[in-house]
């Protein structure tokens, strides 16, 4: 007789197979494993706790509805974070429509002060503990423009390449490259200012 599946120790792929038969307990186990990662990714993109919670919840509902489309090529968590990313981008697009064009947007592609900034020879995060490093990066991300943050999160956390980002953001590879460049330079400047703040304390 086949042994019943132990949900706590089963692999994601096995839980997906059981969930595909309509078993919500298996799906809940998948949620409990990956809910923090999905929420963190939504928060990185949206910078708002409530909005991130709502989007993460919507992503799980969509995940359940589209479970048949999960091919298993990438891991389940990767598949789910792509759903979250798409929902975040939709959400940001909707909000952007309500905003007017600004000078800041020009800076995103052509660089503002970052164009004239000298290159840093000191690593602004040197010697930081991992937890502190993550907090500093998060603080700096919060101060980036939306377009800069999006491209950095997609490249550095979601590990997409230029082509994938361009497709997702509906822009050219050149735009992705320049946004990523100025986002990085701005981030470096912010991290450097945090370092100076800390050193002067």
């Amino acid at each position, binding site marked *: 007789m086949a042994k019943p599946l132990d949900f706590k120790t089963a692999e994601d792929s096995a839980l997906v197979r059981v969930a595909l038969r309509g078993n919500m307990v298996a799906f809940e186990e998948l*949620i409990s494993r990956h809910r*923090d990662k999905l929420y*963190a990714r939504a*928060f990185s993109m949206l910078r708002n706790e409530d909005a991130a919670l709502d989007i993460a*919840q919507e992503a799980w*509902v969509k995940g359940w509805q589209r479970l048949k489309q999960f091919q298993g090529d990438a891991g389940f968590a990767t598949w789910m974070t792509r759903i979250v990313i798409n929902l975040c981008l939709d959400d940001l697009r909707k909000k952007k429509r309500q905003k007017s064009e600004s000078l800041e947007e020009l800076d995103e592609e052509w*660089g503002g002060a970052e164009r004239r900034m000298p290159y840093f020879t000191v690593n602004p995060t040197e010697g930081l503990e991992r937890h502190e490093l993550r907090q500093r990066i*998060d603080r700096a991300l919060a101060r980036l423009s939306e377009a800069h943050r999006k491209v950095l999160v997609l490249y550095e956390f979601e590990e997409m390449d230029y082509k994938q980002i361009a497709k997702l953001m509906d822009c050219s590879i050149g735009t992705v*490259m320049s946004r990523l460049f100025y986002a*990085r330079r701005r981030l470096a400047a912010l991290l450097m200012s945090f370092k100076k703040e800390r050193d002067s304390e």
Partner: protein
Amino acid sequence: MNIELELKIQAWLDNELSAKEAAEVATLVATNTEAQALAAELKSLKISVHGNELALTVPESREFHWSKIERAILQAEKSESRAEAAGFSPFSFFAWARNWLAPVAGLAALVAVLIVVAPSSSEPEYSETETPSEDVDVIHFKDPASRMTIIWFYDQSGNPVQNPGSIDNVEKPE
């Protein structure tokens, strides 16, 4: 250094260049101090940032989080099947009555009998919530560990249900 070169150096560090282009940029970085400085800055930043997303946890208990998702899933399924059923069979009402009313009536009878027969010292758990507006829905959540039942109303359109009290109109203590 011009922006084209700066972007090339970045693309080189991101492994986005062809072998030929990569070799060209590598030579530039090895010979040009400005290119070297930029490459060093970008490289150390990439190492610091990559994968270092803040580790956050969902600010809700596992049970509460799941209860909201489960409810949303069931609600979506319900409205989907309602849409499918709408306007198809002229006998749909009879089918509905046969499929739902009889079992529901049976269940109601069973519940009612249980209420009457059950000893009063250990009352069965009971929870029923109504909302007068179709736009308002409710989450019912029980946390046995803290002995708490939560009834949480929310607006289906995503807007907040008007919340009790504003900062200035809280009743003053007597």
